[in-house]
């Protein structure tokens, strides 16, 4: 049986999707009713105010009705919408995604309210700037074969404050990283860290960019030309860098980069591998407008999980022929 098959997955979690879908229907019905009532209250208040203004030939009636429309609409919104959407999303995560994760990888656990701690993010050294605002959710952790794996969605931002000539201060938030952050046990023991970053300098400035890279220090040139065009490798120990980045591993990283995009960042540190996979979309979410067991929705979720879990196989992390267990 192919564990990534949508029909098989849907059959496996049929009871859970049915249960969550019943609740979804209740919440959706309440929301639909709320929409009607909210429209009625708001439009009703405005029409009433307009009629009073017409009859009294005074515009004050309409202006008095306006705040009633806003306040009334807001009250109805909270009464009917409330936290229904949030409740459904959490139900979907626990009831559907959690079961789906167990179905495709029984050794993995899904904890939607937890994320990768900020300290782990910082420890990786994947990004230079320390985030001023850090959010992480949808933690999936456990074992795939012999490999310990942990991943979650991460949004890290940096605060920029500037003051103009009039003395006005403005603040803007710049995204350092948004996407999937993954930490896995590497199959070899090593001591010195090795970073594999997108080769931005060479991509933009060609030969001159290549020279510029040297200024960063500890630059290591690899044999695979395609790999070299995609990444810039830095490692303090030339031998250990090559022990990690074997020709086969370079080929695997080239394939991974083609699949996951040009901004993929990788760091090998403390016998672990960290990956930062940029992604603007919010993953592992359920859409209240679609039936819970919607085939396309399920296919999308399975695709997201597969995209993360297959990294273990793609990097051959389960091969344990070296001294590390």
């Amino acid at each position: 049986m192919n564990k990534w098959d949508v029909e098989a997955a849907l059959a496996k979690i049929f009871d859970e999707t049915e249960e969550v879908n019943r609740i979804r229907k209740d919440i959706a019905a309440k929301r639909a009713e709320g929409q009607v009532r909210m429209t009625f209250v708001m439009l009703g208040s405005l029409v009433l105010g307009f009629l009073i203004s017409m009859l009294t030939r005074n515009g004050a009636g309409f202006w008095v009705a306006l705040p009633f429309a806003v306040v009334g609409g807001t009250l109805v919104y909270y009464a009917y919408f409330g936290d229904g959407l949030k409740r459904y999303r959490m139900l979907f995560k626990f009831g559907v995604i959690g079961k789906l994760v167990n179905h495709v990888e029984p050794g993995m656990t899904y904890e939607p309210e937890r994320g990768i701690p900020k300290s782990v993010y910082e420890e990786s050294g994947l990004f230079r700037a320390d985030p001023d605002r850090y959010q992480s959710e949808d933690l999936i952790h456990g074992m795939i074969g012999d490999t310990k794996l942990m991943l979650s969605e991460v949004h890290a931002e940096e605060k920029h404050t500037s003051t103009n000539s009039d003395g006005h201060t403005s603040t803007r938030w710049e995204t350092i990283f948004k996407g999937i952050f993954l930490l896995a046990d590497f199959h070899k023991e090593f001591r010195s860290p090795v970073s594999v970053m997108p080769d931005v300098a060479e991509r933009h400035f060609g030969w001159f960019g290549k020279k510029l890279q040297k200024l960063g220090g500890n630059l290591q040139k690899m044999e695979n030309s395609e790999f070299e065009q995609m990444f810039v490798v830095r490692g303090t120990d030339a031998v250990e860098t090559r022990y990690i980045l074997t020709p086969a591993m370079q080929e695997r990283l080239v394939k991974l980069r083609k699949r996951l995009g040009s901004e993929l960042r990788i760091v090998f540190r403390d016998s672990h591998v960290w990956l930062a996979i940029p992604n603007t979309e919010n993953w592992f979410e359920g859409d209240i407008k679609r039936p819970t067991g919607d085939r396309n929705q399920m296919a999308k979720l399975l695709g997201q999980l597969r995209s993360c879990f297959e990294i273990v196989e793609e990097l051959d992390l389960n091969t344990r022929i070296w001294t590390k267990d």
Partner: protein
Amino acid sequence: MIANMEWIFAGSALVLVSAIVIYNGFISRRNAMRNAFASVDVQLKKRWDLIPNLVEAVKAFAGHERELLEAVIAARNASPGSAERFRREEEVTAGINQLFALAENHPELGSSEQFLMLQRNLTEVESQISASRRAYNSAVTDWNEGVEVFPGLLFAKVFNFERADWFEVKSSERANVEVKL
């Protein structure tokens, strides 16, 4: 006249500083090459130390393969300082691979804890040897670029810096390793 002298002085200082930078570049490249070579040596010695244990582990199973055992031992006992060193190392690699292949015909050997541990250790060392060789080749490429590219080639001639040779990486070492445990 004074202004001209200043220009000459500034120009000479620039040439001197450039010369020092280029010369130091050669020295650090040479050191990188020597370090990489030394690490190949360290890993080869590690492998040598593991061979007696491997021979001991497979001895009881090597009925018809006695000659193979003797060949591995002979290759191992070749003097590490001799000119034949690296040719012998290739023989050792081939011999070790054949010893591992014995496990396919002798399931008891394949399931022996000691044998499996040795196999892992030797695979580890082989990976380290391969990494060291590649690091050495990378250092040699850097060095040779310095020797052949202007203005480095002028210094190479003056200080008698010569091209260095790479380790040849066999096609079998480039291929993905598939080891069954």
